[in-house]
């Protein structure tokens, strides 16, 4: 016995929900259609070829896939502990008067346009990184991670700038998630004689799915970051383990080469890079969703329900 307006409401909102699905499907279909020329010509080799030669008309996305993943993972490794520390400090330890100031500051970091980060990266971060790279001892330089001349521009600068850009997102979501942990949880821990550290770790454990969500949100942002990265990464389509080597990312090559792509195949290959980025983002988001689900299942408390709400809040 549903009321008719109730049905209308359900259908209406359902339609809006459908718009989202259609939009994503349409983007995917259009990317695929526009990149068909390149898909046909290179097939799966596109994913593993290391050559990007617009003159010869040979295109492979491997250096860009590598650069995107490498820089994002490095940024994640740097940003995740710092963001968690910030979140724990603000939500659990900071004096009440300091809290709003810290929250305001992290939100301010998130509001800075990426071109500003890029300029800061070029004029402040890169020279500092260069000085650091020149002081790396020879023994370390022999390892594949620190080989090559110290340009300053390169993977290390890109990872650092990405980490700075990701921190506000990850830390504010993690903070909100920690805030959503019921007070009873902490009180229970203290009642059992837990120290502050133990109580906080219990809260962190309780909020773990939300925290994974926060980190994955940061990862997603790092994957797609364009302007700031292209200004500091050196833009060289070569695969290298070295943090010192100039490399390239998918978003950066699109921003750099799209406007001047003069042959159909070139343009098509660039759009296929967009398609690869789209597919990779889809896979990574699905995997993180799966991870959150699998972590949430044993528990009844619906902490994971907090995550989508927080994502939209961020």
């Amino acid at each position: 016995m549903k009321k008719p307006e109730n049905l209308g409401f359900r259908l209406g909102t359902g339609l809006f929900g459908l718009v989202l699905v259609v939009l994503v499907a349409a983007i995917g279909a259009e990317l695929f259609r526009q990149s068909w020329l390149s898909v046909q010509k290179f097939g799966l080799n596109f994913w593993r070829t290391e050559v990007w030669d617009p003159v010869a008309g040979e295109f492979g996305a491997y250096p860009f896939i590598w650069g995107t993943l490498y820089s994002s993972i490095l940024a994640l490794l740097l940003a995740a502990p710092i963001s968690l520390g910030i979140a724990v400090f603000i939500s659990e330890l900071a004096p009440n008067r300091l809290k709003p100031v810290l929250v305001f500051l992290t939100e301010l970091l998130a509001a800075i346009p990426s071109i500003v980060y890029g300029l800061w990266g070029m004029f402040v971060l890169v020279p500092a990184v260069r000085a650091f790279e020149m002081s790396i001892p020879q023994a370390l330089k022999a390892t594949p991670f620190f080989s090559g001349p110290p340009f300053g521009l390169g993977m290390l600068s890109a990872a650092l700038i990405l980490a700075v850009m990701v921190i506000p997102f990850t830390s504010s979501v993690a903070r909100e998630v920690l805030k959503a942990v019921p007070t009873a949880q902490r009180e229970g821990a203290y009642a059992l004689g837990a120290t502050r550290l133990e109580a906080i770790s219990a809260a962190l454990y309780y909020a773990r799915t939300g925290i994974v969500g926060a980190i994955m949100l940061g990862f997603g942002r790092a994957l797609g970051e364009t302007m700031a990265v292209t200004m500091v990464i050196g833009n060289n389509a070569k695969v290298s383990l070295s943090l010192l080597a100039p490399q390239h990312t998918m978003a950066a090559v699109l921003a750099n080469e799209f406007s001047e792509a003069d042959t159909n195949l070139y343009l098509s290959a660039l759009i296929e890079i967009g398609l690869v980025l789209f597919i990779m983002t889809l896979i990574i988001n699905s995997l993180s969703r799966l991870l959150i689900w699998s972590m949430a299942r044993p528990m009844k408390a619906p902490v994971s329900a907090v995550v989508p709400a927080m994502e939209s809040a961020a």
Partner: protein
Amino acid sequence: MTRKIKSGLAAIGVATLVAGAAAQKVQIQGAGATFPNPIYQKWISEYNKLHPNVEINYQSLGSGAGIRQLTAGTVFFGASDGPMTNEQLQAAPGKVLHFPMVLGANVPVYNLPGVNAELKFTGPVLAGIFLGKITKWNDAALTKLNPGVNLPGSDITVVHRSDSSGTTYIWVDYLSKVSPEWKMKAGVATQVNWPTGVGGKGNEGVAGIVTQTPGSLGYVELVYALQNKIAYGSVQNMGGEFLKATVDSVTAAAGAAAGKMPADFRVSITNAPGKGVYPISSFTWILLYENPKDKTQSKAMLDFMKWALADGQKFAAGLGYAPLPEDVVKLEMAALAKIKVS
């Protein structure tokens, strides 16, 4: 009462007159190369002062985008730093004509702390550096060219454009002419598979990296180096002279080419022969259909082109471009007559 009606009628009359004049307004859309954008915008605003009914809108999206939009018919004219290829011309729905508008040049910029002398380069040496074969500043090839200059033993950091660009096209076009190895390994295009170096986005990106990185060498447009007062080296031309890029030496490069200008103006003037010729110079072109659909726009555009090629040239030097030599302008005026206005 009647007076009121009369004045009312007069007002209506004036209104229709104004509307009539407004209807004759011609709007022309164009898109393309970023390199000539400053002078195109200057021309457009100066021309609009003389002919308020002609409104030209130029979007500097890049040469490739200009060619694509012209082919798709979304703009009336395109603009490019490199001439269209035969394939691109065939892909266009109508016959496209090229018109050189001004000249530009690329200059080698470098950062060598402690070296105040102006460095000299030759084409083969620049190619060697960009191929990654000459890697040290005190390489014999460089010290031989620059006797008396105390060149350090540090690595050369090669800086190129990361975005595809007409500037790169001119640079690698020159390298291809002076080095067969460059031609074979990298070739000529707005973006190539760079054998070595780091990429900066835009002239400002390259200049930024060069000014910050001791031991670096890159290339930027002359306009950019002049406006930002970046020091640059001289390059040896075909006759063996070492020349810095100046308005005169760049115009001379076009003058040398005027004698054997192909009818479609699709010509590269890098490494041009002649005295006083700066070797890394190039035209930048406006692209027009020979038989455009809209004849009103066609007529207005033609008048604008004639003005830009004649009176407009005087704005070039002030903005860091080299004006076209008169011989070339004469040829172009004749070629403009091919465009159909009715």
